[in-house]
């Protein structure tokens, strides 16, 4: 049954993050160690994490967890995948200066998203910047979770060719329907 008409299953939470059951189940199974402040693996690289939107939702905040060192810029976007490796940008924050060590950073947005499968994307401009990321289960274990990757996409491009992640771990990124978060 097409996702757009799926009548059952989990409603999309008001706070939609990369920590969805689709990813957590797999990463919990294979991961070891605790999340923590981690440098961005490659400057300008981007991660794409699958999320499902069950009905039309309007998001007013994008957010992520900063690590102990902030530097450069962050871009958060929402993409759709066509074919096997072409991401098409639906929305993005644009490059935003990373600010506030060890806190959650938020950006005001106004994205109305129709039902479907999307990829929540994040890229950072500098490899000295840190974010709070999941433990490192290993590169191979990230792939079955559906995480895709591009080595150079900052700011996030209109179309991006993606492949399997060459880096372990998963960023914590989210969208909120609530202005207070």
């Amino acid at each position, binding site marked *: 049954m097409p996702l757009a008409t799926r009548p059952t299953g989990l409603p999309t939470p*008001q706070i939609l993050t990369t920590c969805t059951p689709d990813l957590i189940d797999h990463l919990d199974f294979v991961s070891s160690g605790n999340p923590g402040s981690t440098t961005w693996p490659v400057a300008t690289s981007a991660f794409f994490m699958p999320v499902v939107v069950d009905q039309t939702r309007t998001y007013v905040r994008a957010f992520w967890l900063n690590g102990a060192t902030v530097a450069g810029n962050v871009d958060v976007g929402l993409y759709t995948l066509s074919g096997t490796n072409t991401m098409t940008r639906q929305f993005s924050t644009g490059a935003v200066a990373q600010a506030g060590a060890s806190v959650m950073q938020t950006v005001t947005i106004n994205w109305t998203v129709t039902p479907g499968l999307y990829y929540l994307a994040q890229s950072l401009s500098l490899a000295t910047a840190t974010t709070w990321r999941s433990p490192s289960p290993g590169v191979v274990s990230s792939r079955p979770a559906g995480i895709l990757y591009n080595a150079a996409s900052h700011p996030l491009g209109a179309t991006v060719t993606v492949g399997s992640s060459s880096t372990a771990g998963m960023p914590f990124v989210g969208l909120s329907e609530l202005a207070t978060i």
Partner: protein
Amino acid sequence: MYTPGTKDASHGSQFTSYMALARYRTTYTPAAPVSTAWPTANRAFLIPFVVAYPLRVQEMWWQAGTTPGTATVDLGIYDDTFTRLRSTGPTAAVNTTDILQPVNGGAITPITLNRGRYYMAMLAAATTITVRAVAPANQAARFMGIQISDIGSGTLPATITPASLGTVAFIPEFGLTTITQVL
């Protein structure tokens, strides 16, 4: 890719504040809950959860810490417009270490929660109450969508105004259940 019922708040007959954590447990260092004083008097904590299919909720509970004291605790359920659906009303705690409370049962008028998004709420009237809680680092609790509301009294209101958790690192252990034998 989606697997219904795994690590979501609709799984099984119990819904707890820690199911929100289970869903997001890779966001924080998984330390065990410990006895913790309620951080601010008359403050409510709102924990989001989702329901995939109709479920009939009958009871709510919270986990006491070392010295729960005798101040009141109010537990409730709100929908995603922050309208109260049910609550226990302010109920005096019993000063017994580490027990589930309310001692005489946290029965609420049964309600069927249909598919949707909800919040479970816990409000304590005093900082002398201790509850079992976790303290996620790095604003991970905020990332989970947990909200607060400073009520000004010990009673959960009919409509509640959420506020950002900010730097507060506190998630109390409480929940709701579809059965009546928890307490």
